[in-house]
């Protein structure tokens, strides 16, 4: 019988597999521990970001027109629906302005500098998105120079889409909430229930159903489908009051001891052309 592999080839393959597995596990561990990647990697990423920025101009334009053509089909229906909502929003906006004003005066009287709800925003443009099976990350065109730091929340359109996972000098990466690695979507949230809030953290993302999961909830407060979910600000890095999504269903866990809440994320993770990074003002003077 012909030998397919010589013993030397087998040894080489095994050794290289061990090296590669070690490399994957090692660099994953290292990336979690450090805020910015080592100089060489950062330099390479900045350079690659520059090239990517140029290439993204035509593809983004094509993508945008394809999306607009898609949107055109249900514009009429949407327009009618939105018109009915707009009056409601105008009223809410006036009320919000008054409450904001009042809040500011009250904070001044209490000599509070910044609370969990104070944040400033940095807007950025998506220049690339990793074409990968896992760890779908966006590359945005703002980095260390704009004051971004690892862990900051990123919003797009309706709500939160992820957190900054790596900061280079002129660009950064955003880990999306659909990514199940530990730093991507473990943020503190609060659900505005009928008889009181329920606090907790996002524990997982179900990619097969496109839902965020908040498990191990023992609170007896009533939560029902449609309740709003927002960030609670606990932990300090992520400001309070960022919209996350709506409760889609509440189930019991496998042992029946605690509740598992499934959340429909508000943001559309597919079309992300511009993003806003929320920078908490706590500690900033």
């Amino acid at each position, binding site marked *: 019988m012909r030998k397919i592999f010589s013993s030397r080839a087998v040894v080489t393959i095994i050794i290289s597999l061990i090296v590669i597995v070690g490399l994957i596990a090692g660099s994953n561990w290292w990336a979690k521990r450090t805020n910015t990647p080592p100089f060489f990697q950062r330099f390479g990423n900045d350079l690659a970001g520059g090239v990517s920025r140029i290439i993204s101009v035509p593809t983004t334009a094509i993508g945008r027109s394809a999306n607009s053509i898609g949107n055109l089909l249900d514009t009429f229906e949407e327009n009618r629906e939105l018109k009915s909502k707009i009056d409601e929003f105008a009223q809410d906006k006036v009320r919000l302005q008054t409450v904001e004003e009042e809040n500011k005066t009250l904070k001044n009287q209490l000599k509070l500098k910044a609370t969990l709800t104070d944040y400033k925003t940095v807007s950025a443009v998506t220049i690339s998105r*990793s074409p990968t099976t896992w760890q779908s*990350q966006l590359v945005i065109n703002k980095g260390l120079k704009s004051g971004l730091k690892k862990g900051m929340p990123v919003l797009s359109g309706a709500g939160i889409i992820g957190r900054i996972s790596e900061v280079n000098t002129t660009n950064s990466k955003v880990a999306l909430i659909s990514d199940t690695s530990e730093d991507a979507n473990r943020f503190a949230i609060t659900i505005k229930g009928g008889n009181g809030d329920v606090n907790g953290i996002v524990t997982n993302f179900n990619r097969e159903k496109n839902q965020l999961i908040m498990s191990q909830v023992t609170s007896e407060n009533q939560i029902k489908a449609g309740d709003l979910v927002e960030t609670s600000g606990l932990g300090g890095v992520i400001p309070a009051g960022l919209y996350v999504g709506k409760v889609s269903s509440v189930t019991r866990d496998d042992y029946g001891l605690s509740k598992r809440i499934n959340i429909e994320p508000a943001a559309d*993770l597919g079309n992300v052309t511009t993003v806003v990074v929320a920078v908490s003002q706590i500690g900033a003077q």
Partner: protein
Amino acid sequence: MAFWQLTRLRVVYPALLFFLLFVDGSLMAGMGGILTAFPWYILPTLTLVWLFYAVQFEVDKDMPFWLYVILIGILFDMYYTGIFGTYTLAFIAAVAVMKQLHKILDERLLSGISIFLIGLIVYLVVTYGAGFIIGIANVSLVTFFAFEVLPTAVLNIIVVTICYYPTWSLFQFLK
């Protein structure tokens, strides 16, 4: 074959390989709404398509092909995931399998498509396995094949078919 002709392929091939790496990312960002419309998850893999053409049209012998494969893998890992090893291994494994298959099959379009299809499956399965190592794989193998591998293969095979003869003539011109 004159020296300058050899150099031409050596410059144009890696330059386009480098360019396509970023085109993949831009396509994913620009057309994300279509490519990741729930429940589908389609990846543009133009970089792998370009590597396949080199194997299929046997231009890999005229240049330091393995060096390009390794370098593009490292760059991919560095820029897109920040975790080294996954895509370097995926590109190497896919190219190695495609090269072995190319020895058995001929240069017809259908044989080419079969080679690419198997290469693409190897590429995606390696990335799925790497997800397990670092504990981020959260999709069952069935869902992965139905909603990611299948549509990705369809999209990329269409690309391979459309660009098959133009690329062949380009390589003939550069050779």
